[in-house]
């Protein structure tokens, strides 16, 4: 096994949803939620995936974790094609290595199960603990995420949102995964609780050596946790680089506009800053604009932008951008 091989590799991933078919089965209306997305993540790294509603980031996350089949392209974990491995029955071990943390603490836990049973379910599925060890392992996991093991007999509705999210994290950890897709894990929580959960996730990454794909729309939180960040717009990646560079030197016009839209907790800065305004709204993913999908709202739009779709170009692993202005053909 090549130690430089990325843990996760996504190549030309596309995921389309057909929402209307003609009478003979021919697709009439297709939502191109994800279109030709490629990136990779190294072991122990956190890649942040940001974008606004409808950009496809959640779909990317769910496809990677196996909830959807790709329409095109492949996803590989340690060089093994995920979707074929998951279909091979008897390959339970592979399933265990690739896990997900969900967004809504109110619907991500089965309301009819006690917290202890919820955390213990992966142990049963993958036989990771003997019946004797089960109880102590559950207590260990609860402690690891900052919960009191005494409460393992309680039900989810008796806990607050932040505590429920911790239970969800404990459940994921129980499976001893290598790679975790975090689908907006803090968006539904209060600000001070968000900070607690982010710290917890960071601690766990350092202690256990986890690798994260962190999907979110709050750029400031993403920046804090991620080593690298990828920005998505309408199903495609527009910019991928390390966190510091993204904020200090955003190259893609969409990234620039996005960054300027974030309200900063500093009234002096807010009063003096220049906002870049993007006219209009995000186009529908059913009929995305031709060429560069952003060209309809971009103030630097050139004729070539509506004709040819720009590819992610730049120094791979350093700073890549999909824009004709930044990387003229």
């Amino acid at each position, binding site marked *: 096994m090549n130690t430089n091989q990325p843990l996760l590799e996504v190549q030309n991933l596309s995921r389309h949803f057909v929402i209307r078919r003609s009478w003979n089965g021919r697709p009439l209306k297709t939502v191109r939620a994800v279109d030709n997305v490629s990136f990779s993540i190294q072991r122990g790294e956190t890649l942040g995936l940001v974008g606004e509603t409808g950009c496809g980031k959640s779909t990317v996350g769910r496809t990677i974790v196996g909830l959807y089949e790709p329409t095109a392209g492949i996803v590989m974990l340690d060089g093994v094609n995920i979707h074929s491995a998951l279909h091979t029955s008897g390959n339970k071990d592979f399933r265990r290595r690739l896990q997900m943390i969900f967004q809504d603490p109110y619907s991500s836990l089965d309301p009819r199960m006690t917290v202890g049973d919820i955390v213990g379910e992966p142990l049963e599925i993958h036989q990771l603990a003997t019946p004797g060890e089960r109880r102590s392992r559950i207590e260990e996991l609860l402690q690891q995420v900052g919960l009191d093991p005494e409460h393992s007999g309680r039900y989810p509705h008796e806990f607050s949102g932040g505590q429920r999210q911790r239970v969800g994290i404990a459940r994921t950890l129980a499976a001893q995964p290598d790679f975790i897709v975090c689908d907006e894990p803090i968006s539904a929580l209060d600000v*001070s609780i968000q*900070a*607690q959960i982010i710290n917890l996730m960071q601690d766990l990454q350092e202690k256990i050596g986890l690798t994260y794909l962190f999907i979110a729309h709050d750029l400031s*939180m993403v920046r804090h946790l991620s080593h690298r960040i990828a920005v998505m717009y309408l199903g495609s990646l527009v910019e991928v680089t390390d966190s510091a560079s993204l904020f200090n030197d955003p190259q893609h016009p969409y990234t620039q506009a996005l960054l300027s*839209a974030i309200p900063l*907790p500093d009234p002096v800065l807010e009063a003096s800053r220049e906002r870049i305004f993007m006219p209009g709204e995000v186009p529908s993913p059913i009929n995305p604009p031709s060429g560069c999908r952003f060209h309809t709202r971009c103030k630097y739009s050139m004729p070539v932008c509506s004709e040819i779709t720009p590819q992610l170009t730049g120094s791979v692993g350093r700073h890549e951008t999909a824009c004709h202005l930044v990387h003229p053909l």
Partner: protein
Amino acid sequence: MCLSTILLSVKNLHVRFRTYAGVVHALRGVDFELSVGEIIGIVGESGCGKSVTASAIMGIIPSPPGEVFAGQAWFEGRDLLKLSEAESRSLRGNALSMIFQDPMTSLNPVLTIGTQLTEPFTEHQSLSNTEARQRAAELLRLVGISDSETRLNQYPHQLSGGMRQRVMIAMSLACNPKLLFADEPTTALDVTVQAQILDLLKRLNLELNTAMVLITHDLGVVASICQRVLVMYAGQIVESAPVQALFSEPRHPYSLGLLQSVPNPDYKGKKLLAIEGHPPDLLLPPDGCAFLPRCRYSMQACLETPPMFSVSTGHKARCWLNHPDAPSACHEVLKVAVAT
């Protein structure tokens, strides 16, 4: 701004809710004032009572479980909390208005935008349908929606989230209210749309001189358009300050904690300084300072509920650290924390 007149004056507001488990004291003594044309922000986390404050003043708290059992809210010479339902209703949508968080559920899905937008005019101003429609079209233009005629005939589901929120704002401005409550108006929107809506609110405030109370949990939103900020915790206001003062010199550990929970681009540390613990259950409101269990600067005095202390003009904080007799170390401790 020295000629500002007080538009709304809330004194000692107490609200409680009867639940199966007992009585929840949602508001435990809220006092504040709002001047004509001012934009203030109420910041706090879930359960602190910020939405309840607005609902109580608007008179829309559901009465069997909820009860305003003390306090006054003076607006144009009348105590809003003592009005009859009919009087309250004549003010709502008229001089007092409110917009809510979720634009998807705030608009009636089976009525066109036109129908919903003309309602305030026909209801409160007795305009004819044609006149109302004209005014509705004007309103849409005011909130930045072009081709108003087409939009008036559309249904809510045909508009995007940002558009719907604009329509909501238009509806709330129909009768030129003196005071607008905005309860998390941008929380459900994308950040780019949020920027547009905040900008719109700011512009409307300047053009129409409508006072606004912006309820949010996002400090960035507060920093961008509010002039003054009230920080709420556990049913009380714990700090009230002009916006710049709050961010540069918070005088309550909770305000400080909130500021430190948000990643600051200049902050080089690895971990966020989270506030440990969680807010108290208002079924059993704690004696003494509600923030005590989570506070890094707790003192013996904190076992007694602190009153509001004046820090400087327009800046008050409900914390013993600001007591005039407190040792200077107390006055300095928060400054040091902010600097790091």
